[in-house]
């Protein structure tokens, strides 16, 4: 008998098997009474509420969202670049500092990065209360770590000979450092900076759902009052904001050879650093930490959380990540492969856009109208939202690919679907899987959001512990979250390396 051999194409489709256990649980959990609500939600999409009052609210809330998103982006990109430099080995080579420090900083940043901004947000809100600046701080903490990783990775690609050449001139250390890292930093900012601004705005919306402010808060409130027409007004306005910002970002080109623009950027850089430090000090010395006794309380005494229950929550979180990743990987190629004509593709793109647009907690709340809370429902939510993102990438790559193989196969009389699979998709499968490995890092972190809303895994426990001010439980949950995310990142890193 021939041995089964898996290739990249089959590996892209295989995870769709997660739909079997998922589907059976979802079918068992359906409650038909909620379909009327779901129907109302869908109809409202074509009939959003439009009057003067809501337009003014939308403008105000969008302003808040943009403001929080923009400031968190600005601070996180600047400090991300600084931390990127001090967590890259080029810094240690120039200053002759032992690599030991470099490992400590990287480890510290990995821990910070492993916890989702929503988790930081709800923890900080519990400590400091609801505050406009909490949103900025909650986004900045993990984003600085994420951005620093990207900057550091770019700095690692610097040709060692360039370093030797500048080092041999024996210039002052800071001059050498600046000359070596300047262009990689600028180029990373050009390629990656605006994408991070979009991410920052999306994160602001999600944090808004948890009460930080901005349009997210209004989305959540309108859902709670089942005011779907109002909800869709907010969702469409958010869609317009994302589409417009995407169009504007495409047009923006940073001309670093223009002296005035360069000086302007440098001024913004230093003002942001100065302002951030001043605000940080103000924040520390002007808060009462009402509900938060002391840092020592985080580690004091044993918690009420039983070991068995805790392990069960960890297992649930891991299963949730795996199931969601399975959907995010396989759903786009399966759907595109089956409905492989121009009209279907058009509708798939719209559907994928809506999945990307609607924040995961809202998708989950919508699905909860006709399904009981379960691990499968949370996995479906997270999987669908991320499938919206992976499908965008897959469409972009497939459209820019050389179609000669596909045409040649069709000319041999091979069916359109098979030609698509073997002539087009098979060439993209490897890079698609590599991106999905990166995406699964994000999915692991996002389990916290659906966990909080969908009463699943560690996210749920975190919410419970926070509302009862059980800080030692919060610490345990955060350590568990962080550990899962770090282990996941290590495994995905290995997968990515084997695929690239």
């Amino acid at each position: 008998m021939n041995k089964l051999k898996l290739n990249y194409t089959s590996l892209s489709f295989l995870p769709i098997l997660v739909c079997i256990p998922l589907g059976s649980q979802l079918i068992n959990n359906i409650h038909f009474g909620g379909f009327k609500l779901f129907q109302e939600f869908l109809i409202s999409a074509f009939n959003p509420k439009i009057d003067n009052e809501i337009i003014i609210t939308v403008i105000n809330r969008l302003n808040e969202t943009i403001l929080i998103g923009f400031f968190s982006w600005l601070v996180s990109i600047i400090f991300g670049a600084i931390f990127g430099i001090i967590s890259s080995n080029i810094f240690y080579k120039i200053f002759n500092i032992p690599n030991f420090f470099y490992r400590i900083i990287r480890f510290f940043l990995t821990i910070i990065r492993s916890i989702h901004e929503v988790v930081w947000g709800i923890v900080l809100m519990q400590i400091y209360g609801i505050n406009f600046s909490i949103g900025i701080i909650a986004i900045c903490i993990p984003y600085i770590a994420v951005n620093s990783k990207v900057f550091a990775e770019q700095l690692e690609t610097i040709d060692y000979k360039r370093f030797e050449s500048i080092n041999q001139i024996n210039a002052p250390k800071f001059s050498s450092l600046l000359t070596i890292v300047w262009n990689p930093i600028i180029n990373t900012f050009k390629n990656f900076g605006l994408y991070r601004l979009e991410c920052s705005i999306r994160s602001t919306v999600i944090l808004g759902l948890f009460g930080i402010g901005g349009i997210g808060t209004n989305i959540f409130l309108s859902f709670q009052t089942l005011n779907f027409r109002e909800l869709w007004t907010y969702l469409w306005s958010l869609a317009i904001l994302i589409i417009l910002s995407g169009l504007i970002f495409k047009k923006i080109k940073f001309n670093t050879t223009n002296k005035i623009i360069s000086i302007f950027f440098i001024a913004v850089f230093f003002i942001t650093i100065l302002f951030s430090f001043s605000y940080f000090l103000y924040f520390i010395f002007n808060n009462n930490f009402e509900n938060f006794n002391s840092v020592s309380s985080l580690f004091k005494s044993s918690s009420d959380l039983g070991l068995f229950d805790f392990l069960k929550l960890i297992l649930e979180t891991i299963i949730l990540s795996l199931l969601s990743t399975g959907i995010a990987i396989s759903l786009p190629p399966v759907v595109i492969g089956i409905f492989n004509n121009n009209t279907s593709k058009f509708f798939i793109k719209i559907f994928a856009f809506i999945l990307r647009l609607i924040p995961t907690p809202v998708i989950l709340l919508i699905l909860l109208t006709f399904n009981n809370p379960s691990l499968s429902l949370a996995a479906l939510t997270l999987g669908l939202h991320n499938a919206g993102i992976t499908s965008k990438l897959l469409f972009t790559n497939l459209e820019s690919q050389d179609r000669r193989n596909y045409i040649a196969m069709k000319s041999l009389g091979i069916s359109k679907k098979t030609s698509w699979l073997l002539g087009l998709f098979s060439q993209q499968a490897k890079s698609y899987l590599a991106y999905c490995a990166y995406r699964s890092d994000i999915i692991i972190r996002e389990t916290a959001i659906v966990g909080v809303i969908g009463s699943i895994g560690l996210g749920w426990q975190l919410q419970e512990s926070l509302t009862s001010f059980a800080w030692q439980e919060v610490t345990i949950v955060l350590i568990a979250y962080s550990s899962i995310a770090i282990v996941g990142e290590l495994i995905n890193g290995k997968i990515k390396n084997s695929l690239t």
Partner: protein
Amino acid sequence: MNNTLLELKNISYKYKNNLILNKVNLKINSGEKIALLGKSGSGKTTLISVLNGTIKPTQGEVKLFNKSFEELDRKQKSKITTIWQDLRLIEDLSAEQNVNCGLLAENNFYFAFKNLLNISSFKKAHKYMQLCRLHNSVYHKKIRKLSGGQKQRVAIARSLIQGSNILLADEPFNNLDPKLITTIKNLLLENLDKNNTKKSPKTALVALHRLDLLKDFDKVIGIRDGKIFFNIKSNNLKKLHLDKIY
């Protein structure tokens, strides 16, 4: 009087179990112009990298001004300038910014900052670029947009602007046409004062393949398999010597 500038004492260098330099002893006196001959892979580049302190030898001692590299301060180390075989220019910077990098050692951080922002003075850089016969149309061009010969001359201009006493050059005449070779050779082997007129002696060790250029050097060193085979006055060089290393 001991006028030894650079000295290698019993230098060996091992890389991945391969002995690249094997017990090399060498003295370079002030004002000496030395040509370094040898096949590709004979250890010329490694020898230059050991001399400028870029790589640490596995065994032996390197001395500059009778001090080991660890004892030297930054200003003393900057008395050596190197022209690398692979040039090692910063591709994303313009030609003039790259040449200005040669001035980093004698300036502060603010100068480096202004250079990257393109707001520093390029007067001095332009002067050296002109000396290297670089047309002003290439001043603002990014390195990646230049031809091989233009890049070579930018690297030479960057080295000259450093105003160092000791020049180490690894095949600096690559990519240059015969007329330019003469000009560049004169520039490299002669120190220029502020007005580019008065000439003073300069110490140089230049790795090259072209035998017709040897007449301008005081000494010739032949290297093969990481070992120095001969170290003689250039006018004593015979075919016999060359047969040993090629």
